């Protein structure tokens, strides 16, 4: 009985630490290093993440990456992107999914998984805490705090 409690407690600690880091840190948008795109606008980001266009401004297909529902960075990101709460975003998707025209981004459990996917997928686009950015990634947008 001791072990699960410890795991949960340590998980909670990590979560709260990450959350603090996330809210404190700026979020950046990254793409594969080989992607010719150098910059995206806030508006282009909205259109890509809200399912309007699944393409980069240059017309190349884009794969938007997101975190799983429970990931703390997600609510911070969408709040910064659209000014809406996560529940409003969820309600949006449930309405849109019904008609089948658009679909939400693929969801990954962690920043590591996201980084892996971006490195391996040239058309991927994702968001990360600024301190998690590696050399294999290209930052195309920074949220001004």
């Amino acid at each position, binding site marked *: 009985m001791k072990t699960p409690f410890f795991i949960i407690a340590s998980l909670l600690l990590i979560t709260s630490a990450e959350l603090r880091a996330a809210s404190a840190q700026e979020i950046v948008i990254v793409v594969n290093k080989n992607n010719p795109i150098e910059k995206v606008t806030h*508006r282009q980001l*909205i259109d890509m993440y*809200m*399912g*309007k266009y699944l393409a980069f401004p240059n017309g190349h297909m884009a794969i938007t990456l997101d975190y799983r529902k429970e990931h703390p960075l997600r609510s911070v990101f969408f709040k910064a*992107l*659209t*000014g*809406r709460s996560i529940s409003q975003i969820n309600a*949006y998707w449930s*309405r*849109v999914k*019904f*008609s*089948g*025209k*658009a679909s939400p981004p693929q969801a990954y459990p962690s920043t590591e998984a996201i980084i892996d996917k971006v490195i391996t997928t040239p058309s991927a686009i994702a968001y990360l805490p600024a301190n998690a950015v590696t050399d294999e990634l290209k930052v195309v947008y920074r949220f001004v705090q």
Partner: protein
Amino acid sequence: MLLLSLSTFAFSIVYAKIYYHHVFDTELKRLESTVRQISQTVSSTASIAAYLEDKDLANEVVNGLVSNDIILSAALTNKSTVLAKSILYKDKGALSFYLPNPFILQENIGVIRVVPNTLYIEQNARDSAFSSAQTLLVVVLPMLLLFAILAFFLISRPLGNLSKQLASVLPGSAQRIYIDPLNNQNEIGKIGKDINIMLANTETLFEQERSLRIEVEKLEKRFRLMFERSSSPTILVKEQGEVALANDAAKDLLVGMGIDCEERFPENLGQFCKTPDILYTFTENSIKLKQVMQSEFEFTNPLTHSSVWLSLIILNTKSDGQWYFQVFLADITARKSMLNQLSHRAQRDSLTSLYNRYGAELTLMEWIDSETQFSLLLIDLDKFKPVNDIYGHNAGDEVLKQLAKRLGQIVPNTELVSRWGGDEFVIAIKDVNIVKVNHLAQQVLDEINTPVAYEKNGHRLALSVSASIGIAHYPAHAQSLKGLVECADVAMYSIKKTSKNNFTIYST
């Protein structure tokens, strides 16, 4: 009443009409606002459809809108294209609701156009308004009818009844209005009672008026009788002199003087007056001063040429703003002549019929007042007492009578002869010429010296007396009558004491 009912009916129709329009407008607004609310409800889904250009979602929104009765058709468009529209959609009459970008609120990305089902909405509103107005009329009309019926039975008919009764009542009679016991306690009954009170008052007033009139008539008759049958001649004259009334006595008097009753006053009398100027002044003053004035005037009757004395009393009275004067006439000729007689008697000596001392004094005072020069002869008989003593008083009286008669004959009528005292006479002539006076004095002595024939007990006697005469002149010897008589007395005594049977003029 009919008018009231009609106007109330017309009013309720107008009111129903206004009410109908009001309800109609309200209903129309309400339905329009419902359209807005419905459109608002779908706007967030519509925004998403416009954002994603999702025609399925857009169709869903449009179908949802059209499923409402009050929406005829709808269309959802984004910036460039129509995403969805219902059949029959036309832009005309559409309400537009702009759709914001779901994530960038200030950006419009599309529009929902909703065409309200105007026919349906209006029909709805009309139905609603019509039923409201109908309800109103259903409530109002029976009330109106009830009101009209009640008003007719409770007010119009009783009032009409009262008025009919009132019209048949003769004013001042004992007739009264019948009040229905049903109305005894209400306003109609009160009106009826008030009318009866008024009728009673009217009757009392009429009664008073009637008795007053009878009394006035009676009085008038009496006054007329008093006026007409009065033995005192009275005429009523208007201010301008027109004779308004003349009683029988006045008519008799005027006719007796040959005066027409229609002639104006005072000219009718003035023409025969001996002093018309005084008469006119008198009447003018009376009219001017509005005072009661009385005076006596002498007239000459033109028919008989005899003297008539009339007393005039003028009394001014005002009636109905017009001045009248009552003229009371009285024939005082008889009284006047009696007075003249009395005055004559008082001034005359009953034995000799000459002026007595009082009468002489009156005449002499008049002469003195008019400053007439005259000579006064005071005559005192000598030896008269022995005649009385020897032959008796009758003999003495006879002497006095005879001498008086002789003196009267030698002195003109315009002069004065009087018996001053027992055996004293006074003669006065308006002359101071000494020759003439002396001549008269001598004549007097001669007459006195002539013996008086007297018969006593069958014996014829000749009684002789003499006289002492003193003469005084006015105003040379004295200014007053008393003084003058004293002067004459002094002169007379100077003769009496000396020679007797002589005369002398007073000397200082």
